[in-house]
């Protein structure tokens, strides 16, 4: 691999500037001390009880953040999951089980419910999960009220024993406070941590653009199911804590309305970071107390306030300080320059490869046979046959609307054609989901660029490593040594891919700050990171100027030199003629011609298709 010797010289830059991190550490320590010490002065007061309820609510909302904040899915059953956790714990503990047995069972029960609910609906469009969770939540509410022998009906269950910790029963608000605080802190820590794991990156990637996440090898349905299960498990544990804290349980507080309240806390606080969940929970727990004087007007203003915050603060309350800061001071560009020697553009290493070019005739790697794709009455692809040989650059050209992009969409599983077969070596690709195709070794970029704007440049590429991961989700979530080792390996490989395309100095910038041509390179780096056998490039030169497209040409040669086969769909004839080993021409969904550069250049049918008919001659006055 041509990039590997370079890797050692890349300086890893894990942390933001030292000063900032020191300040953050200080603030964090101060906050921690306050959280530990302050409650002592509150005693067994009403306020402390409110704080304790707030901590339980926090666990529920931080859990909701997995599916809603990280994945962008609507879950209106979070309170129902909470209720299932609470009732399961209550029933089991009344039967004599200890908390430490009942709580995990309750968590499992909620997790199971979420899987049953999520698996069929998460594949569908977004609002179906909203509907399914509302339905589920309403049913749960009715069952809690009417299944009296088990749930005790509207009066609920009483006399639930408290928690004992190493033989000591928890007593008083303060002890409970520390117990709940420990749980909330642990839950929060996991939620913050997951952001920097493969699981967390996959979640944000699919929220940003689902199809691009699939193509990077992320099984989006699975990731969404895991996120929903995590949400439900958090809610289940919170339910167990709730019943053992107050000792009784009734159907109030587990309604759809309550779910919406949790949802509001999260959105208002700010989605996408677990800190938003904290801010939202604190705000909406404290607000009703502080605004008591408004009485019946409170909820009216609350509703309007929610709309106002959504309209004015796209990032939620947690984004408020940043917004204010941005207004007062211009953002400083990350003027970080990495070792310049590394940046010797891929062109240098590629030129030797291009010399060795000649006509390549490797083994057949990708074979497309008789593919026909119709949309209603429109035939986009009509019995297309194309064979791609290993180690070549195979260009597919043709006028706009000739079916080129449709062709790529068929190859990568976005469309399922009416007839034909697409084989990568011996594996049939048709009918597979996009991520499965990526796993088999076929990756692509997108004509209308699809990067993940909420991730950093490096993280964008790291998502592409998803399919080469051997670590399971649980390990990654818990941060086992093996997963940390792999995380380092992923990071290294991602950096290598960035060096390869020449973006390494931008690794830690947010992806959305990249310029147009750089975004294209980032997509290519992400695709390379999946270690494809075949790389599909959809108009990679679109919108690039001459110099940029010359660099791109070198990059394409360098990718081929690594042994990756390239299928290139492109309009820019300079690029096509510059790098292609073989060219297929599509016109009106049919293959018009195929051959070497020279054959294509001289093919009269091709010239005509590109020239177009000389229509009405010069019939104008």
């Amino acid at each position, binding site marked *: 691999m041509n990039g590997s010797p370079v890797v050692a010289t890349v300086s890893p830059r894990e942390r933001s500037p030292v000063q900032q991190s020191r300040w953050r550490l200080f603030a964090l320590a101060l906050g921690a001390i306050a959280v530990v010490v302050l409650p002592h002065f509150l005693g067994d007061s009403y306020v402390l009880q409110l704080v304790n309820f707030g901590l339980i609510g926090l666990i529920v909302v931080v859990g909701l953040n997995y599916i809603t904040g990280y994945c962008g899915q609507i879950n209106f059953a979070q309170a129902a999951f909470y209720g299932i956790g609470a009732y399961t714990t209550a029933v089991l503990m009344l039967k004599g089980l200890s908390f430490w047995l009942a709580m995990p069972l309750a968590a499992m029960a909620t997790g199971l419910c979420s899987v049953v609910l999520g698996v069929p609906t998460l594949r569908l469009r977004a609002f179906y999960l909203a509907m399914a969770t509302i339905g589920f939540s309403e049913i749960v509410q009715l069952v809690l009220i009417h299944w009296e022998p088990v749930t005790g009906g509207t009066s609920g269950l009483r006399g639930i024993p408290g928690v004992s910790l190493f033989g000591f029963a928890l007593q008083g608000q303060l002890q409970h406070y520390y117990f709940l605080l420990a749980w909330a802190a642990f839950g929060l820590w996991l939620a913050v941590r997951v952001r920097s794991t493969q699981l967390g990156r996959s979640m944000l990637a699919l929220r940003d653009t689902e199809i691009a996440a699939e193509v990077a090898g992320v099984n989006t349905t699975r990731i969404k199911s895991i996120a929903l299960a995590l949400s439900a498990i958090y809610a289940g544990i919170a339910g167990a804590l709730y019943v053992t804290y107050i000792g009784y349980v009734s159907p109030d507080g587990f309604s759809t309305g309550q779910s919406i309240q949790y949802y509001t806390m999260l959105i208002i606080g700010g989605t996408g970071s677990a800190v938003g969940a904290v801010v939202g929970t604190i705000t909406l727990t404290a607000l009703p107390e502080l605004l008591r004087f408004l009485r019946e007007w409170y909820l009216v203003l609350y509703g309007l306030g929610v709309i106002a915050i959504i309209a004015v603060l796209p990032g939620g309350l947690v984004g408020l300080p940043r917004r204010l800061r941005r207004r007062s001071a211009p953002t400083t560009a990350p003027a970080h320059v990495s070792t310049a020697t590394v940046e010797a553009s891929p062109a240098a290493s590629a030129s030797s490869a291009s010399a060795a070019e000649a006509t390549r005739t490797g083994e057949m790697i990708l074979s497309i046979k008789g593919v026909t794709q119709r949309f*209603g*009455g*429109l035939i986009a692809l009509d019995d297309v046959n194309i064979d791609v040989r290993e180690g070549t650059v195979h260009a597919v050209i043709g*006028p*706009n*609307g*000739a079916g080129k992009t449709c062709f790529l969409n068929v190859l990568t599983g976005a469309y399922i054609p009416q007839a034909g077969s697409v084989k990568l070596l011996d594996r049939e690709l048709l009918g597979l989901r996009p991520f499965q195709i990526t796993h088999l070794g076929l990756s692509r970029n997108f004509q209308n660029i699809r990067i993940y704007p909420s991730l950093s440049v490096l993280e964008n590429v790291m998502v592409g490593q998803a399919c080469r991961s051997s670590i399971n989700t649980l390990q990654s979530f818990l941060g086992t040594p093996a997963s940390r080792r792999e995380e380092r390996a992923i990071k290294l490989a991602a950096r290598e891919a960035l060096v390869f395309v020449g973006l390494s100095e931008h690794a830690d910038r947010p992806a*959305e*700050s*990249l*310029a*147009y041509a750089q975004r294209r390179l980032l997509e290519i780096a992400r695709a390379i990171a999946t270690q494809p056998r075949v790389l599909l490039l959809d*108009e990679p030169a*679109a*919108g*690039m*100027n001459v110099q940029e497209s010359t660099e791109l040409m070198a990059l394409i040669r360098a990718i081929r030199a690594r042994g990756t086969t390239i299928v290139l769909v492109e*309009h*820019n*004839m*300079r690029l096509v003629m510059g790098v292609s080993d073989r060219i297929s021409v599509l016109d*009106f969904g049919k293959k018009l011609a195929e051959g070497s550069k020279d054959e294509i*250049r001289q093919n009269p049918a*091709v*010239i005509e298709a*590109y*020239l*177009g*008919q*000389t*229509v*009405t*001659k*010069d*019939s*104008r006055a």
Partner: protein
Amino acid sequence: MLEVEGVDVQYGPVAALRGVSFQVREGEIVTLVGANGSGKSTCLRTISGLLRPTAGTIRFRGKAIVDDNPEDIVRSGIAHCPEGRRVFPGLTVRENLEVGATPWRRRGDSVADDLERVYDLFPRLKDRSTQAAWSMSGGEQQMLAVGRALMGRPKVLLLDEPSLGLAPIVIEQLFERIVSINKLGVTILLVEQNAGVALSVATRGYVLENGQVVLEGTTDELRHHPRVREAYLGG
């Protein structure tokens, strides 16, 4: 008649147009040619008010229109027929055409004459007038899209890639119609990837690359310009 002067357009951080200037005179067919992503469609979208430029002005009959809404710009006489046809799929052919009359139609105004005019140009549309637009072929949809734009009684017609995905014979018919529309007194600004066809009907042309005008001239000049031949006419 239509003057575009020093227009810059940004898509987020991406500069889509950089200092683009060109003019369209009354009665002309002017074409913008260029590769995918060179900013041709962006030009049209800016003229019709869908995009707001960060710099520069656009004047129509001497009046600046850069700050107007698309709804007002079409009322002033600029019809935009965007890429991909974009007929209203759930409406019938006739309903599509009637909606096209929105810019001038007041309560009770009859659209019969305008309908006749469009049906004369595209007899196929008359045969299919009660058919749902989505069920028509690509070429028919393109005719419908042009016809719908004409229903607004435009002075200037902006056509974005009308040949997209159409068979040569259909393209030929369509471009004959475009020439007849022009002869009826409608000025045309034509964006085409298919430079050969575009240059065959236009009077003048501009070549866009990376959001900038790099060449301009009469169609003959452009057709014989080596740069155009190599990049857009296939050598």
